[in-house]
């Protein structure tokens, strides 16, 4: 994994997140019957962002409707020929390292940064062409202002280029059941083992 100022900062954040998560776990153990989902939304949750996304099935839902299930989230655009297919393969490879039951409890959300071109129809076609399991994966679109906000929350950089392409960071972000960032990988192709390990531990924590 490449060390950049961003990832250093992320590491600091991650350790903070882990501390918070550890504290939350302690509470959960003390009161095992407490329904964790009913708890107040953590202040640092991505679900604080009140936005609506529309999936490849044409259905719209608030982002925070995903609360309760750990999630792999990333941003992409369908006309990208090289990296974005690799992004999909990377997420697939992460999933391939999980048990069937673990996979059942992990959501996947890929949000387009190109709402002008990525209509619901285009997203649906991508799901079909790439043989994506549309029951568990959501390829989603929203308006341009919301894309910018979601990217800001996720720490993803992107910039439209004059030729219709985009520069963007291809990071896959793991958020826990309450929407807190638990891990992030920028490794494409085969899954980053450290990232897979975090996915498993977040899934385990969520199942308790």
């Amino acid at each position, binding site marked *: 994994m490449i060390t950049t100022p961003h990832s250093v900062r992320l590491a600091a954040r991650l350790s903070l997140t882990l501390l918070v998560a550890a504290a939350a776990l302690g509470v959960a153990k003390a009161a095992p019957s407490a329904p964790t989902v009913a708890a107040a939304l953590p202040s640092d949750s991505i679900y604080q962002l009140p936005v609506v996304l529309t999936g490849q099935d044409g259905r719209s839902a608030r982002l925070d409707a995903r609360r309760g299930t750990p999630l792999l989230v990333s941003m992409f655009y369908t006309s990208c020929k090289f990296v974005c297919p690799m992004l999909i393969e990377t997420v697939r490879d992460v999933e391939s390292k999980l048990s069937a039951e673990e996979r059942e409890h992990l959501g996947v959300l890929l949000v387009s940064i190109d709402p002008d071109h990525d209509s619901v129809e285009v997203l649906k076609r991508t799901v079909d062409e790439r043989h994506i399991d549309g029951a568990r994966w959501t390829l989603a679109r929203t308006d341009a202002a919301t894309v910018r906000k979601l990217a800001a929350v996720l720490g993803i*950089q992107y910039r439209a280029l004059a030729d219709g392409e985009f520069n963007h960071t291809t990071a896959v972000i793991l958020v826990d059941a309450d929407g807190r960032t638990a891990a992030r990988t920028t490794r494409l192709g085969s899954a980053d083992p450290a990232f897979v390990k975090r996915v498993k531990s977040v899934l385990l924590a969520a199942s308790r």
Partner: protein
Amino acid sequence: MVATTHRPGARAAAAVLLAALAGAVAAADYVPVPAGTLASAIASDAGGAPVPIDAFSMRVTPVTKGEFRRFVEARPEWRRGRIPRTFADASYLQDWRGTTTIGDPAMEDQPVVNVSWFAAEAYCEGEGGRLPTWNEWEYVAAADATRRDARGDPAWRARILAWYSTSARAALPAVGGAADVHGVRDMHGVVWEWVDDFNALLVDADSRSGDDADKLKFCGAGAINLQDRENYAVLMRIALLSSLNASDSTTSLGFRCVRPLAKEPKQ
């Protein structure tokens, strides 16, 4: 005023709703900025051709502390102590005496600082607008009192660099400095400003080296290049903005808003 954007329906409705919610915010002065082209200090393509800039309206001055106080009075969710950590770090509005109290009346007309990108965007949506893009901001910032693009003039650069070298501890001046050729004030000399696409100006250091490393990390035509390496006055801004997260706030970073011209024939 209704914003004309790529998604007119949803965004205009949201803008109207937010404008209604933020009814306590007084009407701010905006001036039209004519369309043109910008030879940006950032090249988004290998060729680095000038980018076309559509006409827009820009706030004459940065948003003041007094204006932002009225905003948080109307929108409690943006108050210090209430705002989720996702949207603002611990230093958000830290220079205020209380959550809706600035303290010193002399500070009312100073530009608001210690605001996160999310809070700045929310404020601008309340005025029926948004933060300017980097290109829009740089386009206006290139002007001086008589020229739309004074960046080639050593005096323009010297004036900005002289400001950068002044102590950040000095009290902020009130807004309302000299007007530029557009009628916009305080683009330089008071505070640094958020832009809408602050998180898209530079790529990570590791991705600037070229070839395959770029392709693996970024879709599109590769890393963004710096066009004008001599222009430290502008590049320092880019470096600052690029180092930030959207929830960060600093003691010298404020913002102003833009909105579409009423009859802008856009898409």
